[in-house]
């Protein structure tokens, strides 16, 4: 493999430097590096980040290839600057056996746009009744370490306790979709002022917070680590902050959309804003930003949830929940966290690469940009501003809440182990 010299890149937002890639590794980082025998990429003051890692992606394959496949989803990931994504288990069939997780893992490897690390289901068929073969999935070629029934909550306290305990044997973690099911029957949106007016079934914050409170206490009791998916309320932030102050081994993620959008948008009854957990209030949004800045929330995860057009081109109640996010995540984080002064680019690298890779034990990802490390890199034009055009998405689905919205930043290059997957904003 040939050499690539990235010249004049602000590594993690610092002073411009050159980064020399040789094969799959970073050979050197410094100033005035020789371009001899190297293809040169003029970074011209763009920001260079470690390849982004998404701990929460729905790739839909197998089963819903009409909305996304491993190929289209990983192309979307590469477009968004990602070099690794964790694929959620709620496929058809459910990723609750070694066979299914290996299939998804191999598809990712074959396509070569982005590493795909499958997440295994906690319970058989996501039914919350019987533990799936967690150990077999861990021992498979996919070496699963993250387990989640995402889309559904592991609501049975005993099953949750056992899962938390069981995965300790191999360093696994349970990622909880915190949603008390009885409190959210018929839920259509955040329960509050807007739901009262619109007459849509409410999804109360307490349905999330009560499960998080229970699970951090369970994790403390059995000495396990637990990860909270898409934390969405100010109250959840307080519970996680309290748990961390107690030394409980909890990590938490927030989605880009919960950092930017509020339930006021639901007044349009446009199902593009229908998502689970639902968009909350301004107060929640500000609390989430603050928590992401101070480290209470560890990471940003997209909850990229593709849906075909017809599942959103209908009345609110009939529409599917979820939004695509891989191709807009970094822009939304720049808008809400960097341009607001809450985070530096180094802070973004921590929350969108280092930490998610660490939580998910994604070896080779989330590494420092320094000599000898795998060349998983993302180059971002942070000066760019443009409006979001879903027609340009690599994802098979278009269900973005940002259509037409002006957002800052654009990923121009992505390298996966030294191989360019995105060049000048175009997939290779």
């Amino acid at each position, binding site marked *: 493999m040939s050499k690539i010299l990235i010249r004049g890149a602000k590594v993690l937002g610092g002073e411009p430097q050159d980064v020399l890639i040789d094969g799959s590794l970073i050979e050197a980082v410094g100033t005035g590096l020789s371009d001899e025998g190297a293809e040169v990429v003029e970074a011209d003051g763009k920001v260079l980040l470690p390849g982004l890692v998404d701990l929460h992606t729905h790739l839909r394959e197998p089963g819903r290839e009409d909305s996304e496949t491993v190929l289209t989803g990983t192309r979307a990931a590469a477009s968004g600057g990602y070099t690794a994504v964790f694929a959620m288990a709620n496929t058809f069939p459910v990723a609750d056996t070694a066979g299914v997780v290996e299939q998804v893992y191999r598809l990712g490897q074959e396509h070569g746009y982005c590493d795909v690390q499958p997440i295994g289901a906690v319970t058989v068929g996501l039914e919350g009744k019987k533990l799936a073969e967690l150990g077999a999935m861990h021992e498979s070629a996919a070496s699963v370490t993250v387990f989640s029934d995402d889309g559904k909550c592991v609501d049975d306290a005993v099953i949750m306790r056992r899962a938390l305990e069981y995965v300790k044997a191999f360093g696994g973690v349970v990622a909880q979709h915190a949603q008390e099911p009885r409190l959210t029957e018929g839920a259509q949106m955040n329960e509050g002022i807007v*739901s009262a007016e619109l007459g*849509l079934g*409410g999804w109360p914050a307490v349905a999330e917070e009560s499960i998080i409170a229970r699970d951090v206490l369970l994790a403390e009791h059995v000495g396990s680590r637990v990860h909270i998916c898409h934390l969405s309320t100010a109250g959840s932030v307080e519970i996680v902050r309290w748990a961390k102050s107690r030394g409980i081994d909890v990590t938490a993620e927030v989605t880009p959309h919960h950092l930017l959008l509020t339930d006021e948008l639901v007044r349009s009854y446009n199902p593009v804003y229908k998502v689970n957990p639902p968009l909350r209030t301004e107060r929640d949004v500000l609390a989430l930003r603050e928590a992401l800045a101070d480290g209470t929330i560890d990471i940003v995860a997209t909850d990229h949830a593709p849906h075909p057009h*017809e599942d959103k081109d209908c*009345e609110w*109640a009939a529409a599917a929940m979820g939004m695509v996010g891989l191709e807009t995540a970094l822009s939304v984080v720049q808008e809400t966290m960097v341009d607001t002064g809450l985070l530096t680019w180094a802070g973004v690298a921590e929350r969108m690469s280092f930490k998610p890779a660490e939580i998910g034990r994604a070896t080779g990802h989330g590494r420092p940009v320094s000599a000898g490390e795998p060349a998983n890199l993302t180059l971002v034009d942070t000066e760019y501003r443009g409006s979001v055009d879903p027609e340009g998405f690599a994802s098979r689905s278009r269900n973005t809440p940002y259509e037409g919205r002006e957002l800052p930043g654009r990923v121009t290059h992505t390298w996966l182990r030294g191989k360019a997957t995105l060049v000048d904003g175009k997939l290779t």
Partner: protein
Amino acid sequence: MQRHLISAADLTRDDAVLILDTAEEMARVADRPIKKLPTLRGRTIVNLFFEDSTRTRISFEAAEKRLSADVINFTAKGSSVSKGESLKDTAQTLEAMGVDAVVIRHGASGAPYRLANSGWIDAAVINAGDGTHQHPTQALLDAFTMRRRLVGRDAGLGQDLAGRQITIVGDVLHSRVARSNVDLLHTLGAEVTLVAPPTLVPVGVETWPCEVSYDLDSTLAKTDAVMMLRVQRERMNAAFFPTEREYSRRYGLDGDRMARMPEHAIVMHPGPMVRGMEITAEVADSERCTVVEQVANGVSIRMAVLYLLLGGNEPALTHARPPVSHHHPSNERSAHTPSAAEEK
């Protein structure tokens, strides 16, 4: 007025008063030997009902026919509601037929809003009740009924309901009638109090332009009109209240409670009533109960809405005298328009 009627909250005070005044003109048509106006001749209106409601559909149909519109009834209840495409597909089918207005009833909150705002069709959209969101023509007919009874049929022309005390009792949480009435009555200057067990009041009600009380008895003495909402018996299975008996004891309107209301105060109900639950037969059948009038007034209101949305440029009544100069016997009870059920 806007092109569509989706929510009572979209109406200004002047819009609402104009509709009520126009409805009074429409009501006079019912006094004529020939109860038809040529206003909407050649216009096509579809009644698109995804949810069973014979009462509302018949009321709209009567209004449409009295205005000489061509009427298509399309009932698509049950299976089609579960999958969303049907609304869009059905709408586009109707659009292809050249429909001028769609009167839509749908179980999903926001379906009429989507229909009006998603670019699926060009026709005017009139919300005939969506989920637990809105039912604006119900609120208008309720306001019309209140104005006639509390202000007067002629004295009411051009007037709103400023300062009137209105109490709405029952399952506010699941009621589009309550939401629409709070919005419209507030716009018309009335003071609204919602009364319900706390389980049947939505979280978020604090921003509504009304008072909330959990105690019916304390509100009755100062109320000008009390509106009893239907309470479905199934609600007690979801623990909204313990038993039917306890509900009616605490929140039902019986003769004793009615006797504590001011002399002039009226009892309203959007129908259908659950006798023995929210209202006793004695109250339902009393002179103070306006349920039958509300049905009749519904036709006039819907005529007024259709006329203002679709035929706005032509005078409603080609031979009518201006409403302000018109004097009519002020005995409101005799001023019935034919009820919807009489219309064939």
